[in-house]
């Protein structure tokens, strides 16, 4: 009973937070609420016995997404300039400028449709069988041959490794997409970061590298893996950028590209090798599967971390610094 009350509280908090963040007038507030929403999602994942997802959500879904959103808000000016643009409006009439009457009708129609959607979905979820094992048994039966003992890692890198191959491709593609749109103004060097942040970063980054390595290694038998580890490493990179420690900026462009593509390249090469050798993509022999998975994950970890940091900084690490007189006098 208490458990059920907890569940209800969690679900209602989620919905309430979502409502608040979508209705908040101030965009900064909305983003902060979004980060809190992400943390609540992580709680829910932990509650639903999905620790791998909880780790990823806290690090990527809440942490890095939040950082991305805040950086973007900062770039477009704190007021959220560009907020008033109507482009991207999805109302069918938005190509033309609709009069208020048509807009009103569209809006009402939309409301009706949304209520219909909600009703249908609630019904569809309601009639779902209360117990369903899905593919649990089939996965458990094959765990011996997967090379790892964490079932999520086994699904992610062995049984459905092809999805993950394409997904690492999605990340690399996102970087290429972001870069193809050209350079964005940098926002990081508006004021120097201050001694405390720099000291904190220097202290913490080595530790975060350690944690990332641990998560990667632990992923074989416990919650964790390349995505969670990569996200932690990416957070370390974001800290380096924020603290204005020029480690990442000093990396040459060619090396940067090579490292960003490393995970996808290694994954593709392994897939091709297996295809050549056994006639099937990613057909590891059970004895070697663990080693192959570790190799792929290690390469992926580096790329995931680097790409996430690059996405945060707009696709590139800019070397330019602001002149001294624009710097913050407060220290």
């Amino acid at each position, binding site marked *: 009973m208490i458990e059920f009350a907890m569940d209800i509280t969690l679900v209602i908090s989620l919905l309430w937070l979502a409502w608040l963040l979508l209705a908040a007038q101030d965009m900064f507030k909305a983003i902060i609420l979004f980060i809190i929403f992400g943390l609540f999602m992580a709680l829910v994942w932990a509650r639903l016995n999905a620790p791998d997802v909880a780790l990823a959500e806290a690090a990527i879904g809440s942490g890095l997404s939040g950082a991305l959103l805040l950086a973007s808000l900062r770039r477009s000016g704190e007021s959220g300039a560009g907020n008033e*643009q109507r*482009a*991207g*409006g*999805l109302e*069918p009439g*938005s*190509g033309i400028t609709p009069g208020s009457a048509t807009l009103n009708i569209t809006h009402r129609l939309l409301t009706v449709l949304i209520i219909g959607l909600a009703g*249908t*979905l609630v*019904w*569809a*979820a309601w*009639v*779902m*069988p209360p117990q*369903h*094992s*899905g*593919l649990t048994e*089939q*996965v458990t039966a*094959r765990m011996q041959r997967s090379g790892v003992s964490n079932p999520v890692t086994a699904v992610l890198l*062995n*049984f*459905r*490794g*092809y*999805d993950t191959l*394409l*997904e690492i*491709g*999605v990340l*690399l*593609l*996102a970087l*290429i*997409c972001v*870069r*193809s*749109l*050209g*350079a964005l103004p940098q926002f990081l060097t508006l004021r120097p970061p201050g001694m405390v942040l720099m000291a904190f970063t220097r202290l913490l980054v080595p530790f975060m590298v350690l944690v990332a390595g641990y998560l990667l290694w632990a992923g074989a038998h416990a919650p964790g893996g390349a995505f969670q580890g990569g996200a932690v490493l990416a957070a370390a990179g974001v800290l380096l950028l924020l603290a204005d420690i020029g480690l990442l900026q000093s990396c040459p462009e060619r090396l940067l*590209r*090579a490292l960003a*593509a490393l995970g*996808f*390249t290694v994954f*593709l090469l392994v*897939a*091709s090798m297996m*295809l050549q050798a*056994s*006639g*099937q*993509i*990613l*057909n*590891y022999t059970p004895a070697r599967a663990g080693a192959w998975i570790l190799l792929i994950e290690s390469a992926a970890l580096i790329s995931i971390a680097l790409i996430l940091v690059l996405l945060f900084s707009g696709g590139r690490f800019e070397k330019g610094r602001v002149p001294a007189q624009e710097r913050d006098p407060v220290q």
Partner: protein
Amino acid sequence: MSLILTVPWMAWSILLPLGGAVATFLSRRYASRLTLLFGMATAVCVGALGWQLALKGPQRHHIGGWQVPVGIDLYADGLAVLMLAVTALVGLLISFYATAYFPKAGQEETGDQNVASSVYFWPLWLFLWGALNALFLSADLFNIYVTLELLGLSAVALSGLSGKAEALSAAMRYLFVSMIGSLSYLLGVALLYNMYGVLDLGLLASEVRPGPTSQAALALITVGLALKTALFPFHFWLPPAHANAPAPVSALLSALVVKASFYLLLRLWLGVFPTVINTTAVDLLGFLGALAIIWGSIQAFRQRRLKLLVAYSTVAQLGYLFLVFPLVLRGGDFTAWGGSAYLAVSHAFAKASIFLASGIIMHVAGHDRIDELAGIGQRLPVTMFALALAGVSLLGLPPSGGFIAKWMLLNAALITGQWWLVAVIILGGLLAAGYVFRMLAHSFTPATWISFEQPVARRMEWSAFALAAVAIALGLVAEPPLTLLQSSTSFAGPGLREMIP
């Protein structure tokens, strides 16, 4: 010979373009040459796969050696291979055109968007190609979602590649449509998985039963994919996105990208869900298709810019594809879905040719305002010939591929006795005549004083011409592709098995 039979060509046809994407991302200097190299290799794989199929029938590939339901399968039948082949041929010709269209990339990046677009076009396009091939071959609901995202991301970035304000805002709108579409699709997948516990299309087809969950899931998936296919009234994002992109990109988007989500609709409705769908839903899709034909054609006729005209014509032609649903599910035979698939194919060639030709015209004239294009035909005879040939296929006049396809659709409408569809197909043809004529008339008007001086690369003109020629050739040699389609496509659904003799 044994090589043809044993090599897993379909897997290579996915891995090669993706590998090419990485290679072009790493080596900018050789990006265009690498694209042609990897493209030709992919085309060879697709050709070999077609041969394999003709000898052995539909192929399955168990990824990782696991079997469904735990593993992911690739599945190649006649329809998939036809789409792969179209992608390869159209893609190669567009790549060839693009080598002249985009300026040579320098080593270092500058702020110039032209240089940026020439650097990033190649990896984006190869990612798009890999995503298309993966999508056509996938037999797994969730894997299809990942391929859709790969496709969506690269398509959005390509459509914003010019960096102009209109292109960026069109790309933004496209991105939102793409996001809603994918998430809607994914929720459908989630509902289905929670209900049946399988992701493989074949297994799902044998397990799925009518009920609120299946129907809600199918509705979500259909809306998501219809958004991505720009079915009326979800078409609003397409004209700005396709018209403001660089010419090779417009050609790729109109010829291939929108077809991918339609292909999925065809597969899912006819192959997986025949037991779930009801006649109301089928008629609704057909009705929206009919509206798309009429609305798109009228809008195309009213446009003042050539590329917008062509983009609206895409909206209209996509409408034809959706007529397949009432045609097949009310008793049509191979002529119905084969006609629809063949229309998708011939439209891909015709539309790619027209967009490439418009790109040449824009390059030479500096604009694409239709009323001011008099005399351009004298300057660009090859391009104009390509435009005319592609127009013939678009209209559905013999001896083009468009003619065969529309003839098949018309036949199916007559057999199933759906007279309103007959009327729509004929009306659509007349309206198309209007805008195709408008597209050609001004350009063919001779002018005494020709002001178009910009030089244009030969290979750009010939690429456009080759595509148009294929669109016509599809009418002259329709037998092999249609046989491939008919003999080796087995939609898995039990409902449809009875419908297709």
